């Protein structure tokens, strides 16, 4: 069989994740990239449960469960604790959901990045507080149904752009990723591992129950997210933007939206709104690529 990503598994079967869970694949790929000399710290999120109840764990690396808002702070502590004892080789990874990153966890993350702690922070983004039953987060996109943005009051606020917030901190390396594009994610994780300082990756991870779609469509939805331009795959290293994948022509956003029940209520003008958002965002992204290349050169 052909293997496009490392073969060793660091997550066992038997997790309690839902059928088709994108978050499991995200962790699976991340650990394949990092290897066994890794320590995880996980705040409240789906993965607090997916890993398994005491006395069982599905990850084959040490894992420290921590409180909701503390992923980046706990990771900072673990990193410094290892370092003072002479261990600078173990990778310390904070692994959090979107809620624990862009909302309640944003302060600790901001502090850690500003201090340039030598950690990898991965936000697996399924666009809502899924573990507590699909409530809206700052990362929920415009137009989505959630239990706290019901159809009559669907979310009318734009998705918080966490990667751009990281860029504004002057972070050394930040990137978006998508579980459907496993090789790209693995490569970015391997790159992050080689960099000293704080690295932030946001990996788009599907959630069949939360997005109200069949589990079979889990990867297809993610791939369409990339093909419609809803998900932009790019990285920013030392302030220089680089787009990793730009389809020659974007598929219409409907193709992505119609697969998911959480968007079923949208009217044509709503779809237009999302299309406009996508176009605006790509224009800005491409402008940033050109501008940062010119300002900072390619010596990133």
């Amino acid at each position, binding site marked *: 069989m052909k293997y496009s990503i490392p073969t060793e598994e660091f997550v066992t079967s038997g997790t309690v994740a839902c059928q088709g869970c994108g978050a499991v694949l995200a962790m699976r790929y991340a650990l394949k990239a990092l290897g066994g000399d890794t320590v995880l710290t996980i705040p409240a999120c789906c993965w607090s449960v997916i890993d398994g*109840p005491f006395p069982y764990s599905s990850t084959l690396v040490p894992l420290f469960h921590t409180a909701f808002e503390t992923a980046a702070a706990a990771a900072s502590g673990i990193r410094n604790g290892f370092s003072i004892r002479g261990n600078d080789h173990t990778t310390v990874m904070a692994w959090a959901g979107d809620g624990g990153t862009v909302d309640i966890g944003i302060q600790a993350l901001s502090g850690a990045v500003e201090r340039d702690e030598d950690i990898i922070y991965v936000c697996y983004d399924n666009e809502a507080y899924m573990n507590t039953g699909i409530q809206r987060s700052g990362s929920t996109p415009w137009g989505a149904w959630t239990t706290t943005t019901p159809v009559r009051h669907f979310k009318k606020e734009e998705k918080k752009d966490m990667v751009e917030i990281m860029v504004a901190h002057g972070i050394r390396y930040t990137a978006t990723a998508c579980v459907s594009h496993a090789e790209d994610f693995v490569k970015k994780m391997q790159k992050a591992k080689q960099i000293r300082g704080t690295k932030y990756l946001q990996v788009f991870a599907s959630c069949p129950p939360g997005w109200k779609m069949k589990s079979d469509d889990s990867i297809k939805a993610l791939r369409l997210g990339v093909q419609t331009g809803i998900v932009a795959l790019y990285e920013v290293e030392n302030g220089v933007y680089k787009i990793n994948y730009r389809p020659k022509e974007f598929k219409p956003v409907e193709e992505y939206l119609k697969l998911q029940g959480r968007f079923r209520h949208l009217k044509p003008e709503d779809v237009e709104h999302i299309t406009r958002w996508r176009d605006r965002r790509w224009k800005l992204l491409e402008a940033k690529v050109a501008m940062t290349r010119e300002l900072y050169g390619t010596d990133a």
Partner: protein
Amino acid sequence: MKKVITGNHAVSYGSMLARAEVVAAYPITPQTQIVEKISELCADGVMDAKFIKVESEHSAMAACIGASAAGARAFTATSAQGLALMDEMLHWASHARLPVVLANINRAMGPPWTIWTDQNDTISRRDTGWIQFYCESNQEVTDSVIQAFKVAEQVEMPAMLVLDSFYLSHTSEPVDLADIALVDEYLPKYQAKHDLDPAKGHPAYGALCNDEWYYELQIKMQRAMDRALDVIVKEDALFGEMFGRNYPVVEGYRADDAEYLVFVSSTVASTAKDAVDRARAEGIKAGSVKVRLLRPFPKPQIRAIVKGKKRLGVIDRNLSYGSEGAFYTEIKSCLYHEPQRPEIHGFIAGLGGRDVTVDTVFEMIKITANQSPKTDINWQGAKLA
């Protein structure tokens, strides 16, 4: 080596002598000099620690927890609002069975804003599973940092030492800084029983437990606290042998032949000694008892010291609203099953930094000696009329 230093610097030097390895702290008046001095000691190479300048107290405790879980000796310092902010993580540290040590400057809670002392910040945290030492002098503060680590690491429960804001934190007293080689003998390098080294395996810590085993884990915590009382006494005795100073968990002043005892803590313990002397001079057979430990509560020692006493008074520089002072509750409660139960006065004094003078304490001694208690709360030194 003797140095005349403030309570804050006594904490800093204590953390240096205890060889704290990771310090994660956030500034708050009146603790700031603690972290400033630690920064200085680290910069001068006198202290070999990683100082994480976190962006809030909640993150400070989270970082200490991470560092301790990774196997390093973790330390922080805070006060009032800061301690309140890290409350969630105080529970996390004790439930995770991590020997983090914290120094808290007792400062009254806002609003309204205040930077002066009372004990409500730490009294509010007595249910978190942290060992609590209440310190009377700067010498005791420095020595308590060392003892706190020694005890915490043995019983795998976190410990805090607390001291009064300004009366101790900013007041200079002579402190004998122990020889660090001797401290190393007393307090060897921390060896975690469970840590996060991938080479040792891949457990998860703190996984979902529900009602399967949660109860038993709490029983283990209580057992650790029970053990802690004995360990504290034992380690204090050893400290006394090695350094020539020790700090009984319950310490009487002219208590043996006293008929009336007032229970005090923190700097009021020093004031009380003068008040006791004045009382004695006026023919009142009074004594004072300093209570150093709130958690675990030293029940056997309290029961022992009140034997044969006619009446007791407890001076609380704190208040559990809707009930009474905390030390009052604890002392009354631990005497409930005793065959001999003297009457006990509950005095509240010094909230928000109101000065507790020798006169005030003397007044309380007189009341204890001459009257039966009529209420659980007797406000002393308040502008009531």
